[in-house]
C-alpha cells in the first residue's frame, strides 16, 4: 500500500531556513526534513558571516515529499523566484514512494 510521491530537494543558504519553511507550509506540503550541508557551486561564497575556519557547513539541504508533483514544482518556483537571484541555491526533484507516514 504505497503512495507515489515527488521528493523536492533544495540546497541553499542556512539564513533562509525560516522563510523557506514558511513557503513550504503555505504551499500545503505535509512536512519537510532538513540537514546541515556544505558544498560548492557556481558562487562558492557560503555567506552568513560564520567563521569558515571553524564551520564550513553553512548550507542546508531541505527535502520535501509531496503527493503531487505540482506542489513540489510550485514550492521550488517560489523559492527560486524569491531568493535565487541573491542567494546560492539549487533545486531538483526525484521520484519516491512513501511507505509509511503519519500524515501524507
Amino acid at each position, binding site marked *: 500500500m504505497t503512495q507515489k510521491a515527488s521528493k523536492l530537494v533544495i540546497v541553499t*543558504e542556512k*539564513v533562509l531556513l525560516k522563510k523557506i519553511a514558511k513557503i513550504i507550509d503555505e504551499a500545503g506540503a505535509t512536512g519537510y526534513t532538513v540537514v546541515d550541508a556544505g558544498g560548492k557551486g557556481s558562487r562558492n*561564497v557560503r*555567506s*552568513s*558571516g*560564520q*567563521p*569558515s*575556519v*571553524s*564551520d564550513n557547513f553553512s548550507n542546508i539541504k531541505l527535502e520535501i515529499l509531496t503527493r503531487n508533483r505540482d506542489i513540489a514544482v510550485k514550492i521550488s*518556483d517560489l523559492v*527560486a*523566484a*524569491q*531568493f*535565487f*537571484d*541573491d*542567494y546560492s*541555491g539549487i533545486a531538483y526533484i526525484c521520484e519516491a514512494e512513501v511507505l509509511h507516514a503519519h500524515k501524507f
Partner: protein
Amino acid sequence: MDFLSDFFMRFGAQLQSPTLGFLIGGMIVAALSSRLAIPDAIYKFIVFMLLLKVGLKGGIAIRESNLAEMLLPAAFAMLMGILVVFIARYTLAKLPKIKVVDAIATGGLFGAVSGSTLAAGITVLEGQNIAYEPWAGALYPFMDIPALVTAIVLASIYTSKQRDTTDEAFSKQEYLSKKGGTLVKYGGQQDITASGYPSEQGSNTDERVKIWPIIKESLQGSALSALLLGLALGLLTRPEPVVDTFYEPLFKGLLSILMLIMGMEATARLGELRKVAQWYALYALVAPLLHGFIAFGLGMIAHYATGFTPGGVILLAVIAASSSDISGPPTLRGGIPSANPSAYIGASTAIGTPVAIAIGIPLFIGLAQVLMSS
C-alpha cells in the same frame, strides 16, 4: 620631533602585547594551511562570554554612575555609525567597478561594531592600567544599530530607484522576448534558470523601508543580545560574586583564543576578498583608522566638555575603527540581499579587523597618551 618619537616608542611597545601576538599567530597558522581548528561551538561560546562580561561590567557601572555623562559619548557613537555609511557611499561607491549596494553594505559593516575588537581594546587598556568609564562598552549598540539601519535604508532607496529605471527599459524588452516563448533562455543548453522569474517579485509592491524591523533584527542578534542581557543583569541584579570569580578572570584568556580565531579567519577570508575589486582592500586598510581618528576627535570634545576619560576616548575610537564580524553580516545578508557578501565580509574580516586591532588600538592609545596625558 619629541612628540613623534614619544609616540612611536609607545606604539612599538603595544606591538608586544599577547592580544596582538595571538591575532598574528592565527593569521600565520592559517597561512601555513594548518589543520588547527577551534570548534564552532567554542567560538560562539567565547563571543558570548566576552560580550556578556562587557555588558555585566557596564550594567554594574551604570548603577553607580551619572547617566548624563553617557549622553554626549552616546550621541557621538550614533553620529559615527551613520557617518561611516555615508563616507562609504560617497567614496567607495564612486570608485570604478564597485557596485553601489556592495559599497553601502561594506560601509554598514564598518560602521557596525566588533565585539572582539572591543574586548581586545578593553584588555589592552587594562593591561596598561589606563582608566576608562566602565559603561563605555555600552556605547556598542549606539553605534552598531544606526550603522546597520542607515546602510539598509540607503541600499533600499538606491535599489528601488534603480528598479524604477530598469522596469521601464525592461517592459519593452519583455514585449519583444515574449514572442520567443521563454523569457530567459541563453544558448541551447541553458534551459533552466536559477530564479525563473527575474524581477517579477518586486514588480508591483510598494516597498517603503521599515526601520523598526531592522532595529529589532539587530537587537535580536546573538552579539547584541548577549551584551544587552549582561547590561540588564548588571543593572538589575547583584551579579558581582559571579562576575568577579568567573567572567572577569576568564576574560583575558578567552580573548586570546578569540584573537587566534580572528587571525585564522582573516587569512581564510583573504581568498574571498581577492575575488572582488581591489578597492575593497584599500578601503579596509584606510577606513578603520580614518573612522577611529574622527571618533577620537569627537571623543576629545567630550573629554574637554564633560570629562570623558582618555580611556573612554580610546574605546570610542576603537569601536569606530572596528568593523562587525559576528552580528553584522547576517543582518546585512538579510537586509541587503543583493549585495555580494564576499565584498563586505572579506573586507571586514580579512583586513578591517586586523587593522583595527593591530594598528588601531596601539595607535589610539599612543595618541591619547601623547595628547591627554598632561
